């Protein structure tokens, strides 16, 4: 039973001890909260620290453009399909397809105009991030290649955006705090940025094609210097800068690679090979990511084997070429043979008359046949080919009153298709002939027809007639040449005004 010996310590001493404990436990607390990044993610600038990941950010955009339905057959976002239905290229066979009908009847609304706007801005955001990240990076071997590709992609997306929507918001950085409040600006400003970007891309990219590792390849799946020139030629043409359009188209047409001509029209005999992967007409193509459906995809979801059934409808085939497009193909006035493009780039199918009452008469419909292989790797999605450059140069020359030069370029395309040279002589006739030629050469490709109608100012005249031919209650007014923006976007950004007319 001994007594406890009690230490007499002052309160101060104890508090000191206290503080020591607290200090010990707080040392390095900031550092403690630096957690390792997730194993399946890369954070911030880390994405641009090496070539493989930098290229990965570009791969992602190209992969989405190739597989997301922008230029291929997926129904949800298909540019070519929707604008083909919207204009005079396609007819809708299925009266109940809720996605196609608003386009075919020229009655799209903010709710039915698809996701083009948001999908393109997503890729522009990705490109902006890549431009910022790659520019800042100091450790890349192929910095110029990736940066050039990013600039090209941004220009390509803005080009389509402005051509669908007219005035658009220009997002030139990835900062959402800026981007979320941006208003629409005049089209000209979009073209200014597009041209700036493409000139940069031209300076950064090489004559050769590169692959995802920056190694020279024959595959034309990534943009090179001439791809930038091809889009530049188009952008200058669309914005009315004829001399530059001619120069840039000329750049492409006369391009050489390793001493040989880089791009050239195939002979008439090989017109069925224009869309093959190895075609020398191709300036830039997207390599699709989907494996089994190339054929369906390229031809805008129109199946190779027509699966219509006997009961009077086209079954799963929902879309065919419009009769007016089929009729637009000329014949050779001397030999009276069909346009080779009609022979090789179209195919037809006939459905027997139905055994129902009343009888639905037998029908023949035409379908695009530019891509016809079902085998992976045989064909890619072509965005730029040399024929368009000839037509661009032809138009640029015609606009500058170099009529002979224009005719020469136009006739190259016509002759290759087995047609005689044009007999137009006046400037206005030659220009119209070129536009008409673009219609049959570039049909169902990347919305060319829609854009040509818009920029040539003929859209109202053409469409007022087309809506009557469609006969499904379609109506037209001039405001419809620009698409509406989804309501969510308008709600989320008060500065963003809906497209006039919607």
């Amino acid at each position: 039973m001994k007594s406890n010996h009690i230490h007499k310590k002052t309160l101060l001493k104890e508090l000191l001890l206290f503080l020591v404990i607290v200090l010990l436990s707080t040392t390095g607390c900031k550092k403690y909260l630096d957690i390792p990044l997730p194993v399946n993610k890369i954070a911030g600038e880390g994405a641009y620290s090496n070539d493989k990941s930098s290229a990965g950010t570009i791969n992602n955009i190209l992969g989405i453009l190739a597989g997301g339905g922008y230029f291929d057959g997926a129904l949800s976002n298909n540019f070519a399909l929707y604008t083909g239905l919207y204009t005079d290229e396609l007819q809708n066979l299925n009266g109940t397809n809720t996605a196609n009908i608003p386009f075919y009847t020229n009655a799209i609304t903010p709710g039915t105009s698809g996701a083009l706007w948001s999908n393109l801005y997503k890729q522009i955001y990705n490109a902006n991030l890549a431009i910022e990240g790659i520019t800042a990076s100091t450790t890349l071997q192929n910095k110029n290649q990736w940066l050039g590709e990013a600039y090209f992609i941004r220009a390509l997306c803005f080009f389509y955006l402005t051509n669908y929507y007219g005035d658009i918001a220009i997002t030139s950085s990835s900062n959402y705090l800026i981007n979320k409040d941006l208003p629409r600006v005049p089209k000209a400003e979009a073209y200014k940025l597009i041209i700036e970007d493409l000139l940069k891309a031209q300076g950064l990219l090489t004559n050769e094609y590169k692959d995802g590792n920056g190694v020279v390849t024959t595959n034309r799946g990534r943009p090179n210097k001439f791809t930038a020139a091809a889009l530049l030629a188009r952008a200058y043409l669309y914005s009315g800068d004829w001399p530059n359009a001619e120069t840039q188209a000329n750049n492409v047409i006369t391009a050489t690679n390793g001493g040989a001509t880089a791009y050239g029209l195939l002979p008439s005999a090989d017109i069925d090979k224009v869309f093959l992967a190895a075609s020398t007409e191709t300036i830039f193509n997207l390599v699709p990511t989907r494996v089994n459906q190339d054929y369906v995809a390229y031809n805008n979801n129109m199946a190779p084997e027509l699966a219509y059934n006997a009961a009077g409808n086209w079954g799963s085939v929902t879309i065919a070429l419009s009769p007016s497009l089929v009729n637009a193909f000329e014949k050779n006035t001397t030999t009276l043979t069909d346009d080779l493009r009609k022979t090789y780039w179209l195919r037809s199918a006939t459905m027997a008359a139905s055994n129902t009452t009343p009888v639905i008469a037998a029908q023949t419909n035409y379908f695009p046949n530019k891509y016809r292989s079902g085998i992976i790797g045989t064909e890619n999605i072509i965005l730029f080919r040399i024929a368009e450059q000839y037509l661009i140069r032809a138009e640029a020359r015609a606009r500058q009153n170099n009529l002979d030069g224009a005719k020469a370029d136009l006739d190259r395309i016509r002759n290759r298709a087995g047609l005689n040279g044009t007999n137009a002589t006046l400037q206005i006739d030659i220009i119209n002939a070129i536009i008409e030629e673009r219609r049959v050469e570039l049909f169902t490709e990347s919305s060319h027809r829609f854009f040509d109608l818009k920029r040539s100012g003929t859209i109202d005249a053409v469409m007022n007639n087309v809506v009557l031919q469609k006969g499904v209650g379609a109506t037209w007014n001039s405001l419809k040449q620009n698409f509406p923006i989804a309501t969510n976007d308008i709600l989320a950004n008060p500065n963003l005004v809906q497209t006039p007319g919607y």
Partner: protein
Amino acid sequence: MSLETLFSKIEKQSGYTFFYRMELIKAMPNVNVNLKNVTVEEALDQFLGKLSLSYSIIDNNIVIKSVPVQTNIKLLAPRIYIGKVLDEKDQPMPGVSVRVKNTMLVVVTNQEGQFITPVINDDKAILQFTYIGYTMQEIAVSELKVPIVIRLKLTSSDLDQVQITAYGSTTKRLATGNSTTITAEGIAKNPARNVLEVMQGQVPGLFVQQLSGLPGSPFNLMIRGQQTLTNGFRASQPLIIVDGVALPSGPLPLNQNAANIRENLNNELKGGNPLDYIDPSTIESLTVLKDADATSIYGSRGAYGVILITTKKGKAGSPKLNVNATSGLTMRGTSPEMLNTEQYIMLRTEAYKNDGTPITSAANFSDINGPNANRYTDFQKEYAGYHASVNRINASYSGGTSDINFLIGGNFRKQTSIQIGEGSVRDGGLNFNINNSVKNNKFNISLSGSFLSTTDDAVPYDFSQGNAYTSPPNSAPLFLPDGSLNWVDYTNNSNPAAAQNIIFKNITNNLFSTLGLKYTPVKGLSLNANIGYNYMNSKAIRAQPSTYYQPGTTFRTTSTLSFYTVRNITIEPNASYLTALGKKGTLTVQAGGTLQNQLNYSSSITGNDFLSDAMLYNPTFADRLTPGANPQANIISTYDQAPNKYLGFFGIINYNWDNKYILNLNGRRDGSTKFGENYQFGKFCSIALAYLFSNEKWFKSLLPVISFAKLRGSIGTSGGDGIPNYSFITTYSQSTPYQGSLGLQADNLENKDLHWEHNRKTDGGIFLEFFNGRISLDATYYDSKTSDQLINQRLPSTTGFTARSINSPAIIKNNGWEFELITKNLNGKKFTWSTRINLTLPKNKLVAYPGLGTTIIDLDKVIGKSVYGVKLYNYVGVDPETGLHNFINRNGLKSAFILPPFGDAALDINLDKTEYIDLSPKFYGGLGNSFSYKNITLDVFFTFTNRIGRTYLGSQSFPPGFPGLNTTTAALKRWQNKGDEAEVQRAGAGISSFFAQGNYVTSTGAYEKATYARLSSLNISYTLPDGLAKRLHLGSLTIFGQGSNLLTISKYGDLDPENLGAGMAPLRNFSGGLRVSL
């Protein structure tokens, strides 16, 4: 010889120890004694009387006193005091803590209930005796009478029940915060598998909803109302802490897409609850912290309330073995009564009559007039009509001395399934605890651990959803007479019962361990550290073998093996200092920190198409050679890893003035890896005051019936960080490849401004006890405002994203009343009866939501209404003319609203939802009665809830009479003839009844009051009288019968009013068992 010598001689011979005051003995003359063959008592009697001394024997101790015996000890400091603590039955109580009030001097009684205090040099010192479940006693040393025998009383009121707080404990008497505790005793009265089920209705302010009766299913927990904008299930889950270690937050398994989920359920119902992996028998107490005073100390994690669980600890005393064995049955709970064949055909026939469709012999009428139309199967019974067995056994062995004590325990449970298919859920676990104190309690160390392994191989399919209700009663039987699956009538793999052949096995292991250290270097100061480690891992296989498919059809067998691990380390050092301050004041200061490091791993391997079912257990053996496809596409593997760190510092200041005024301040600074640099740290604090006004002199004379009265109030803040990791930076993940090269995509828009969710809580209450604890009433009013909610805000596409995480400008207000009334109605020697009732009246309101309807599209939110509700069409009953459901649209037009071209107009999904229904509970609570007569006790507990739910008929998208679908007997109240005023629309198979029903499902008509009272648990037990138990060489023996979810009283239609048809209705349980202590 001197008395001193004599005593030491007797000590040597007898083994007794003498206690006496030296000055008393020294003053005595020498004695001459000759003692032979006498007992110690006789010896002492012989000589002590002459010396006017008396003695008393307490066990082995002989205490010598002067006569008269009862004298106050006039003391001179310093002294030590030796005494003994007994319970009401005069049995010694080991493990009672004896504290010198307002100091850190504590001792614990030994096996014999004896204690020896440290040296006390203050003769005004007060000794405090505390033991869980017993009323705390305080005695001034000056009032101690020799022999020092303290009798502790079983807690007659909850007043002195120990309440666990964040970093310590208090009593209900002195608490400044609002918390409720459930003890092991309460848990044992309910046969529930998950302790959350026990908590249902027991805790005012805590709403517990069992979402599915299948074992391992999740619960919806809400402390003081919904505080998030996300609707419904599991939106704002409280933080659960077991022995200082936080349980993994969020539903389990962490990988929601992995195989170990019930496949045919909503996401809300997938995964279980972490508490499934803690055996209720290992829980000592469970405390629910609600207000700012109790939760602010948890800072960023305390916004939605906190549940503290402490596991059982070793107790000093002779070693005791406790065994508890229970065996019982579970069966299906409430489910809709579906139409029988006769009724079904009647409605089907009537449907065609109403539609004007002639019934022919065509195939689509075969359920009316086909050859098998008279068949009848009760499909609910077929799918889930089995009686499942539940068997549990747990044992613990505990004992030790006041210096070192231990507990070891083990438990095993097995619950089979009430559904078709083999399999069961089996848990087995071990737990232990060791406590050691050395150097007069200067240093304490305790180590506890528990391990539970759960194997679930029951069919991972909730058969109560879908076919069990909707299969027409005359459908083909699911099984052929030989017991095999019926593929004859159910062709193309359409037999739902095939799900019983899914191979499933989920093994989840949960290891919990805590090391506690406490060092008391000097009086008043104590340094503590708590180190916790939790490791939970799970391995699950889910496979569809060939027996899942119809023989002879083309099928691809599939198998997924998934794994996840959660590892959590918590280190919590803290120091506390206690000192007297002022004349009557006690100041406690506590400060410390928390370091938490959590790491989650998950991975899975899926394989498709196997040569043989035997290979399903290894998904890497799937087909690698399917032609035309990517050779590796048949084997898919995933891996994910997510670290999460957390850091916090806290300080607590408590000042108690004369047990009258108590002030409590909490402060916390928290850092989390979920936020950007500028917002990593957040500060949270609270202030609370308690005023024990019954301790005022004027009060005692004024209101003698009130034996205790306390007013308390608190205000403070807490936060939440319920967002995914890395939201504040831009991250990239692997995405679309191109030309065979990998793609990388930004998947998150950085927001460096993300910060803590903010919750400001105010709480005020009054606690009154009447007639010395016979009646106690606790009433609380609370009010909380939640703001800065982390939500996704809509962004324009120009940003590249459609939404981003932001701190929402919305403000949600929760307020309400909580009452708890405990009465001891009868308190006789043989018969006792007590009643507990609690009631919560919650209110919930969306106060502000800037941007609602424009930048924020949140269809079901209305300013000024509850956040948990739905907007609906205005239902106005069945039209007596047409027999169809009718609605009123926003323009006041009344119609069935059939979509054109089938009808004239349709309802607009956004604009015509003019009505709002609040789905949060209006009130809920529980009512418990405990009776005991001699050795028999009976506990009856009812829970009750008032809320609104959708009826079964209101959730069916098809009208009664629709081909191929059965409905409930509620549909018999249908409209039949023109002019009928009916509750249910006409039977119909046509398009107009279909559309009208479609509108009905999202209208006010589909909802009704789901108010119910449920006999949630009943427990009757008989304890063998002590004498009898002793003769059987038992410490005690109790035989009991238990039941849960035995009776539901409700006007609510067909479904269970608790889970509202979300999944399998809560099961009924009947068990019996015995509890033996050796």
